[in-house]
């Protein structure tokens, strides 16, 4: 009962990576266990908690609701790819530390990816836009108050230094997948 495997080629955090895996291998598992990028966490495996959120061609998606083989040929950004190449944390990451936007840190990578894309598309979000933007991510520790504050703070940091907004947007935008 040997399972068929597929060649999977991804650009992850700007680096071309290849792997062989069965079609059923979830993108979250390939990133974590196949490529060793364990920063992406898995909290429910049915698409509700948002811990596994990564950027696919710049857009946040649930990596537990996608097969790695489907993602083949696309660009993926994980939490490991949010900081600058020299290791300096992105404005979103810095804001989360400054505003105590994390406690256990398990849901945090999903929030960071979601918020990075949110602020790229909406650099000066209203409070309602922030709430809607993070409304699909569960956090059991913080009560969200400091996460909302972190997003506002990140928006300020980006405004102060627009070049620091985050990772390359990939093929963000409409169509063309």
């Amino acid at each position, binding site marked *: 009962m040997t*399972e*068929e495997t*597929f060649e999977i080629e991804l650009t992850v955090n700007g680096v071309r990576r290849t792997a062989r895996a*069965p*079609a*059923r291998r*979830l993108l979250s*598992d390939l990133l974590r266990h196949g490529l060793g990028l364990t920063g992406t966490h898995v909290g429910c*495996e*049915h*698409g509700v908690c*948002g811990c596994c*959120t990564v950027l*696919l061609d710049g*857009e*946040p*998606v*649930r990596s*537990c*609701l*996608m*097969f790695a*083989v*489907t993602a083949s040929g696309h660009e993926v950004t994980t939490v490991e790819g949010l900081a600058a190449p020299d290791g300096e944390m992105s404005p979103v990451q810095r804001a989360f530390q400054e505003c105590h936007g994390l406690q256990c840190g398990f849901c945090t990578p999903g929030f960071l990816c*979601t918020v990075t894309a949110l602020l790229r598309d909406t650099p000066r979000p209203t409070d309602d836009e922030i709430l*809607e*933007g993070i*409304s*699909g*991510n569960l956090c059991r520790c913080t009560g969200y108050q400091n996460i909302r504050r972190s997003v506002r703070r990140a928006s300020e940091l980006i405004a102060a230094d627009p070049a620091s907004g985050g990772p390359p947007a990939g093929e963000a935008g*409409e*169509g*063309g*997948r």
Partner: protein
Amino acid sequence: MKPPPFAYRAPRTLPEALAALAPAAPGTGSDTGGGGVGKVLAGGQSLIPLLNMRLAAPERLVDINRVAELDTLEVTGAGVRVGALARHARVGRSAEAAAVQPLLRRALAHVAHPVVRNRGTVVGSLAHADPSAELPAVLALLDGSVEAASAAGRRTIPAGGFFLGPLEPALLPGELAVSAFFPALPPRTGTAFVEIARRHGDYALVGVAATVTLDAGLRVAAARAGYLSVAGVPLVLDLTAACAGADAVSGGGDWEDAAAYARERVDPESDIHASADYRRHLAGVLTGRALRAATADAIDRAGEGR
């Protein structure tokens, strides 16, 4: 919570996709476990949770994400045609689509959460035929249609005949829903979409999509509502007669007749989140809210000459 094994096809063209979906697909005889009926994988936002929980175990998945010709969104004066690969987010962002049929954008704002809408597809949601989902109710209300294709040919399935039961679309084995058509909004017509969910983004306990058309004197000429979570399939009610007492011009008026009419006709079930009684009550409340909002919208649009 890992999906069970399945045979996997990733066609690049529609004919390839239809061939892969065909029962006991010819030309794939040498494959491992690839026989039987294929299941379409598009956005995967409903299917993959079922797979991860091993509540579904299709023998063969046909991943249509590489079929570029299905990634379409065509807007004409007649309406909005959404291809099988158009994601909720793309359709929701389209100003052209919103101009021709504003209800689409209104309803999409209630579909799960933004991140899910980045992957989930409009046609996939229709083909999933969940009576608690927003888009089936919208397609039904607007008398839209689904275009289905198979190796044997194409057919257009009107919304009224598409939803056969919970999670049961009128698609035959081997058929792929290639697009859905949402007709344009008529003149002097307004829309609204309201729903009550336990948490923001959850499936609605009850939801109502409504269209209200005014006559030249700004009286209600036609009022219809589409309901989710109140029956096994989307329910559409013509509320025109029940709206006779409503005063559109004031924007307020009495929608109680329409609400009562709705309460009598819905047939909800109880589940762990809400009783049938409560759902029936909500159907009435939301009928009034939806009609009021749709009427106000119609007046606005009429004022703008649309």
